[in-house]
């Protein structure tokens, strides 16, 4: 029985139902297979916060794993992976290009022990051909309704080399709730503060943004989840703070408004990518708990200035995401852009260097111009220069990248700005009665590791 069906039964049946009991019995029956699910580690940018968020891909995948399979999940970013022969079947879920080499390394070790390994996730799709060299099987596309067959094939020793659903998105009604029970939740606390949980309300995107591969990964259409399914999942989540990871919420005004209206009673507080800049939408977003948004700042226009002001007018903070190294940026442009960011009063800023990920227009353009000089995927972390910028040397772009971080956070460090943001959300939570104090038993622990400085 699927995790999803089990959740559905628990939701719709009264507590005293005999069927409910049956459901609970099924939940506790001995598992027939052990599936080791791994999220490989990667090296974070030194300038970024130390926060590790619970991953989203593995919990979405886990919801589709058959009920008689025991999932043992390891997120290598917060705990050590012990590679042994305890698992019957191994899955490696990869989101980032900087995870793939580590993922391949793990797979090679498991395969040397005679274990079969299947890969899935965003960067499996981006690096499918290379990943096949380290896999017994790769899964391309979205998992809903597809994993029963995969596990059945495994049991029959008939695992397919490729499960290709890239052009066949599932029925949106099948999506969710994700299975967050696989996470060791205590590992996602920093000094007693719980990290946000990741959540999604839609898939796909209508845009074809220069550095983004969503057109390849999620198709070129916007596919919203039914609002009632979204609310159902949100109401089951025990974390009041969320990161809605949808590519953009600003793709369908009516759906966006309905979503925010439905979220208001839940009193969640959330971070997201762009929200539409219509007053009516922003007003509903604020009521629905919008805490702060990631907003791409690509120029010094009044459009950007007004957009930031609009968010602030509704009490929504803004973290600017600033991509450096684009062909339209000279050294002078980058320096002026940083001055502009300080002027428009961004709450936080994250600077990255353009990384031409496969299946993006950036990759296509730079490939055509033979400007990509580094194909070591570990370097595609958006903090290293892997191509020849148009207006400066790679070394100079690296210097400007550090200059951007240093200059933006010179007067008020990133930790202080983040602290201010946390204070804002705490004030909102205290106001509506949803505030949960930080856990005292974890004040000296950061992502599973003891720390001495507990301030």
């Amino acid at each position: 029985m699927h995790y999803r069906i089990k959740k559905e039964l628990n939701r719709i049946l009264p507590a005293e139902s005999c069927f409910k009991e049956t459901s609970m019995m099924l939940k506790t029956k001995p598992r027939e297979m052990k599936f080791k699910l791994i999220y490989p580690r990667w090296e974070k940018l030194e300038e970024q916060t130390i926060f590790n968020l619970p991953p989203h891909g593995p919990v979405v995948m886990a919801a589709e794993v058959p009920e008689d399979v025991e999932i043992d999940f390891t997120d290598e970013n917060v705990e050590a992976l012990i590679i042994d022969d305890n698992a019957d079947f191994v899955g490696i879920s990869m989101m980032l290009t900087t995870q793939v080499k580590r993922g391949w390394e793990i797979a090679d070790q498991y395969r040397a022990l005679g274990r079969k390994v299947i890969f899935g996730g965003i960067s499996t799709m981006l690096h499918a051909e290379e990943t096949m060299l380290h896999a017994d099987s790769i899964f391309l596309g979205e998992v809903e309704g597809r994993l029963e067959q995969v596990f059945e094939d495994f049991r029959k020793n008939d695992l397919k080399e490729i499960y290709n659903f890239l052009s066949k998105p599932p029925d949106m009604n099948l999506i969710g709730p994700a299975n967050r029970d696989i996470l060791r939740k205590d590992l996602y606390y920093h000094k007693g503060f719980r990290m946000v949980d990741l959540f999604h309300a839609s898939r796909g995107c209508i845009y074809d943004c220069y550095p983004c591969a969503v057109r390849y990964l999620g198709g070129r259409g916007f596919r919203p989840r039914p609002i009632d399914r979204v609310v159902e999942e949100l109401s089951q989540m025990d974390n009041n703070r969320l990161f809605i990871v949808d590519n953009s919420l600003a793709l369908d005004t009516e759906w966006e408004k309905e979503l925010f209206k439905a979220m208001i009673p839940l009193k969640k507080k959330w971070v997201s990518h762009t929200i539409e800049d219509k007053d009516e939408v922003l007003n509903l977003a604020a009521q629905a708990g919008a805490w702060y948004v990631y907003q791409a700042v690509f120029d010094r226009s009044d459009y950007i200035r007004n957009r930031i002001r609009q968010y602030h007018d509704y009490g929504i903070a803004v973290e600017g995401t600033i991509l450096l190294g684009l062909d339209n940026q000279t050294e002078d442009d980058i320096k002026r852009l940083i001055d502009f960011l300080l002027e428009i009063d961004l709450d936080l800023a994250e600077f990255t260097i353009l990384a031409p990920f496969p299946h993006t227009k950036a990759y296509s353009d730079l490939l055509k111009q033979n400007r990509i000089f580094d194909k070591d995927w570990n370097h595609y972390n958006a903090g290293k220069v892997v191509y020849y910028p148009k207006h400066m040397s790679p070394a100079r772009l690296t210097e400007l990248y550090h200059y951007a971080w240093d200059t933006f956070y010179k007067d008020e460090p990133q930790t202080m700005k983040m602290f201010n943001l946390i204070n804002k959300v705490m004030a909102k939570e205290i106001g509506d009665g949803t505030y949960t104090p930080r856990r005292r038993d974890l004040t000296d622990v950061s992502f599973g590791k003891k720390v001495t400085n507990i301030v």
Partner: protein
Amino acid sequence: METNPAFSNYMDRYLDYPGHWDSPSKCGLKLVKRKDGKTLAIATEIYRQNPGTPVTEVVAPLATRILKTNAEKPDNFIFIEHTPDLRSKLTFYGETFDLVEFDWNGENFSNPVWTRLTKEQVDRMMEE
């Protein structure tokens, strides 16, 4: 951003092709039979109208497909990749033309090399 690259001097039909992992894909196409007997093929990336893989990512198999469909010889075949102007606020969606040259192994094109062309150069190449 303009979503619908229109038929133009560089595109007068659509071509369906298999993209990565057989994903259904589509581009614009114009074939010009030149006075010197060579065939000039212009493949246009149509962005949102293309449900699958962009032209650049499958340019060698796509050029091979066009060559074979039109029973041309590799020596008489010139391939240009075109991206239309989407009139975006961003600068990365302007009109570009690239001459794409390949290795030929007797069956397929491979190892594409792109050389940027001006619109005027393309217009002249169509007239030759």
